[in-house]
């Protein structure tokens, strides 16, 4: 078995990821994504828990109009299920599968939990405004040279650099 800390050469990994993205566009005409699956998940949950609410709220109606059928039967939901499988397989091979709350030794688990949930909340919200996240908007947008995608990419990384200083205690 490989040593635990060994990761793939980043340029090789990037090249493979780029080829995968290219193949994805070639086959399906669309790029990779992730946050869209979260959106499908939320819509599906709301529609089944509170169908009445979903049927009189603007957002869910707009979603239903754009996406016919069961929200969970979407391309991105299947793709993200694949990500779970693929990442798990990779973790197994490289001996990295372990239940663990990872955080910097300088912060407590509670701090990490709060930060992770807030960070997730912000990312979830931002990905809706940005019409996609790092995968769907930034990476795939760059591949097809979309102005919107590239601007979102610049904003994500620019924003992260701008705010990084204020949250350095979480990581350093």
């Amino acid at each position, binding site marked *: 078995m490989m040593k635990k800390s060994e990761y793939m050469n980043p340029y090789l990994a990037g090249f493979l990821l780029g080829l995968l993205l290219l193949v994805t566009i070639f086959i399906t005409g669309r790029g990779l994504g992730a946050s869209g699956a979260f959106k499908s998940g939320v819509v599906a949950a709301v529609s089944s828990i509170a169908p009445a609410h979903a049927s009189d709220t603007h957002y869910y109606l707009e979603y239903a109009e754009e996406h016919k059928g069961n929200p969970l039967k979407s391309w991105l939901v299947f793709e993200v299920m694949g990500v779970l499988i693929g990442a798990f397989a990779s973790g197994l091979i490289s001996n990295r599968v372990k239940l663990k709350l990872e955080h910097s030794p300088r912060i407590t688990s509670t701090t990490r939990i709060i930060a992770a949930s807030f960070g997730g909340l912000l*990312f979830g919200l931002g990905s809706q405004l940005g019409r996609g996240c790092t995968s769907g908007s930034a990476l795939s947008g760059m591949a097809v040279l979309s102005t919107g995608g590239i601007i979102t990419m610049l904003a994500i990384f620019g924003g992260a650099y701008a705010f990084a200083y204020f949250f350095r205690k*979480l990581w350093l």
Partner: protein
Amino acid sequence: MAPLVPDIIGNELNLVVALLIGIAFGFILEQAGFSTSKKLVGLFYGYDFTVLRVFFTAGITAMIGVIAFGHFGLLDLNLIYVNPTYIWSAIVGGLIMGLGFVVGGFCPGTSVCAAAIGKIDAMIFIAGSFLGVFIFAEGYPYFEGLYKSGFWGYPHMFETLGMSQAAFAVVMTVFAVVAFIATTMIEKKVNGKSNPELVPVRMYYGLALTVIVISLTAFLMPERQSDILNRSSNEAVLNSFDPMKMTADELAYRIIDNDRKLQIMDFRTQDDFKQLNLPGSENLTYENLFGKDAAKTFSRKNVDYVFLANTEDEEKKAAYIARENGYENVYVLSDGMNGFREKIIDFRMPSKIENRHEADTYKFREKASILIPELIKENKDKVTQEKKESKRALGGC
């Protein structure tokens, strides 16, 4: 021609493809080290630029691949999903995501990847993301103004900047390479030692050189579509091109005969076409002869395609483009639509008839001049069906 969905790969099979692509996606992300927040935020603090290396290498690879596939006519770039540009929500959404990144340590794709190998912080991040989407959905009336403001359409970055596609690709690539070199230096400074894996070796130089040579030769050649269009406007080229011809009489006969092995392609303007269109004809532009829809149209076996325009020269141009795209069985209508009008639709019996053959021809034309306008009129009532065009793929998040 690609994309393969929905014609070659159906929508159901596409979901299986999604699963397989997802598996590869997850595997690569995890192998690259994207399953730990410590590595992911490293680039914002200067100690680990793995994310930047993987991200830019992937983006550049895919971008050059997409351009090259489009360039060589393998992929119809008009059918692939291009993210729309809503300038304000792209900027504000991006900034919020950036904040989420340094606070949470993940982005959605990487959080799924990390959760898969048991990172509890990643699972919490995912739960938070669901909540974030839910807040957006519930507060949509408040966000909608921002969400839909500043719509620029679906532009490409090189168009927005007023550059050529190839020039933009070169700029991006140079930018990425400079970023790779600079961040390696920053990393070394912050960590006090260089990363032995990343010391450039000769193999990298070799690979980089090969890629540069290939892409330069490829992009220096004119783009295929505009090249063909240019040649098709060249008189010398057209003069030496001798397509198959169909006479007005044969065309009229086959229309009256309701010949199913005949497909009329009309290259006149939309207005001309609306005013008068022959039964079963399709209105096209020269550009329509490229791309996936053309491949579909011309895929019918044993069909004669008759190209129609006001003059024969314009028909010849279209036929030339069709031939360059590999489409056969194309005929041009002798003397063009103008000739067809004169000989058939507006036929007047000449006072002088030279011989028997002419007499027969005129007799036929006289009949056709009554029948064809009737068929045209009948057809006009029927032509309400919409044109079936391949739709752009839907994507995004």
